[in-house]
């Protein structure tokens, strides 16, 4: 045990500053009780009274050592002073030896403590610390492939997951200031309580970096807001899954793609954040296809669907439209189906392009249905430029689309055009908007070349009857 009244030095041989102070250890030992904790090689401080090898690094860990050398003054079992690196004045003050280190330079920075080596910190925390982890530990066989073990236990979406070892989960939890035991809410369909720890476990499996945790937590919280209707989004026979739209600086900071191939593959943040949300629904909520998830066809977005808006000053980003400050960071959840391309390479006026968008938006769900599914229109930079050059704001485009998409119901009635599907006869003679108020969202995203935009149809039970898009601020 290190001394409880006296001095403790923590050092390693593989540190030039530790070697610099090694000749001083004799003087420290002569002045009073001393423990020298050596992190790597017992040849260091050999022969100095009180020197010992901290082979497991337990003492270094318990003393919260960040640097070597570290000099600590203990009194009655409590730390009363600390110096790190070599600073002559500090060492003289902590040791009480006024002439310590005469002839040495005044200042030399130290090195990192071995307790902070990659992978070591989490292992030490698991072995000696209070991790706050409470999830059930699942032992797998020594010869069992951990990736296969996750498949065998039904934890995956069909693709391999990163096995959620305690070390990885601890690293993931370092990405948030929230406590592992904090409950975010009840995850449908089982209405199981979801802790920050469970989110971290599923984020590990999805392939997230710890820095994505605040985004994943916000996405899970948004999914649990009643208006989003996650239970119905999951259990419907229709196509949808929770799509995540990221706005604000935090998305850019962690690299959520809003540019080339924004709706496609190839970006870790996009792929893993959307997937983490889906794995939480699957594993914590119990929402598995073929069980409560009854989707007839589903959609590839149910693996993962996450992208960021490519924000520019001239067009109000989605989170600002939805009442948040521009500098805020948010996730917006939308019960999205698949991606339908809008190809218009000839329109050079906003009027023409808006008509193209309206014509394509008309087929969401079915050309003869209205006020059923919401939609997200993803406007590419090339298409956006047509509106910017004509001075059209995003709101003006939205209002023009709503105007173009409000049509007489007669042509859409059930039976009209020889198609049984359609609106109820009671709507005859009325003007009907395609989308309910608030049901058409517009975001700007995509690469810099291509006169193409995209429509992502929403669940045909959009609105208060099913799902309303929910925007949640990303905190910590």
């Amino acid at each position, binding site marked *: 045990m290190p001394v409880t009244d006296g001095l403790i030095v923590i050092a390693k041989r593989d540190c030039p500053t530790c070697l610099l102070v090694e000749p001083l250890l004799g003087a420290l030992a002569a002045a009073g009780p001393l423990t020298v904790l050596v992190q790597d090689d017992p040849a260091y401080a050999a022969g100095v009274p009180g020197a010992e090898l901290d082979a497991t690094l337990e003492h270094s860990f318990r003393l919260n050592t960040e640097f070597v050398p570290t000099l600590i003054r203990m009194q009655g079992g409590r730390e009363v002073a600390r110096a790190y690196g070599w600073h002559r004045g500090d060492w003289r003050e902590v040791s009480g030896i006024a002439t310590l280190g005469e002839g040495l330079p005044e200042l030399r920075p130290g090195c990192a403590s071995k307790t902070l080596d990659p992978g070591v910190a989490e292992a030490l925390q698991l072995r000696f610390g209070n991790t706050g982890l409470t999830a059930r*530990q699942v032992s797998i066989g020594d010869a069992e492939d951990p990736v296969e073990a996750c498949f065998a236990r039904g934890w995956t979406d069909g693709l391999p997951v990163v096995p959620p070892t305690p070390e990885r989960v601890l690293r993931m939890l370092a990405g948030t200031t929230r406590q592992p035991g904090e409950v975010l809410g009840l995850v449908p369909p089982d209405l199981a309580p979801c802790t920050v720890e469970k989110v971290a476990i599923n984020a590990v499996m999805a392939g997230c970096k710890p820095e994505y945790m605040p985004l994943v937590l916000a996405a899970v919280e948004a999914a649990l807001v009643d208006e989003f209707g996650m239970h119905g989004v999951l259990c419907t026979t229709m196509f949808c899954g929770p799509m995540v739209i990221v706005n604000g600086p935090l998305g850019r900071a962690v690299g959520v793609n809003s540019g080339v191939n924004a709706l496609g593959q190839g970006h870790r943040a996009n792929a893993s954040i959307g997937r983490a949300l889906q794995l939480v629904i699957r594993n914590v909520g119990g929402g598995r296809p073929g069980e409560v998830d009854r989707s007839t066809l589903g959609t590839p977005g149910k693996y993962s669907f996450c992208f960021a808006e490519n924000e520019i000053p001239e067009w109000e980003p989605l989170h600002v439209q939805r009442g948040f400050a521009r500098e805020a960071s948010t996730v917006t959840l939308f019960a999205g189906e698949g991606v339908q391309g809008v190809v218009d390479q000839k329109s050079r006026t906003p009027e023409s392009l808006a008509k193209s968008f309206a014509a394509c938006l008309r087929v969401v769900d079915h050309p003869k249905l209205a006020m059923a599914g919401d939609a997200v229109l993803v406007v590419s930079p090339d298409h956006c430029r047509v509106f910017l050059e004509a001075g059209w704001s995003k709101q003006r485009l939205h209002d023009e689309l709503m105007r173009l998409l409000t049509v007489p119901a007669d042509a859409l009635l059930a039976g009209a055009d020889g198609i049984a599907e359609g609106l109820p006869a009671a709507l005859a003679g009325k003007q009907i908007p395609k989308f309910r108020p608030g049901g058409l969202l517009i975001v700007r995203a995509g690469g810099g070349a291509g006169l193409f935009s995209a429509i992502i149809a929403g669940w045909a039970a959009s609105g208060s009857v099913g799902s309303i898009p929910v925007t949640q601020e990303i905190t910590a």
Partner: protein
Amino acid sequence: MTSPPILLDPTSERSPVARALSPRPDSLAGKSVAVLDISKARGDVFLDRISALLAGQGITVNRYRKPTFTRPAPVALRQQIAAENQLVIEGLAD
């Protein structure tokens, strides 16, 4: 990696419990049957017919309706159905 290998359970840790079905009644005589419309399209066609058939046998039929099929039935409705009936029939999907 810890040894032996340890993974943290990503699930809600609810052990699957095989729940036995409730015993089937020998007869519907003297029982009240709830007929629950979950607001799915054309569910009422099926439920109207089955209600008529049950009523024709002199069985008490109570009709209920969920506000939307996208959400579980409100707690109050579930409690009302349980309090007023011994059986429930619902039209689950279209």
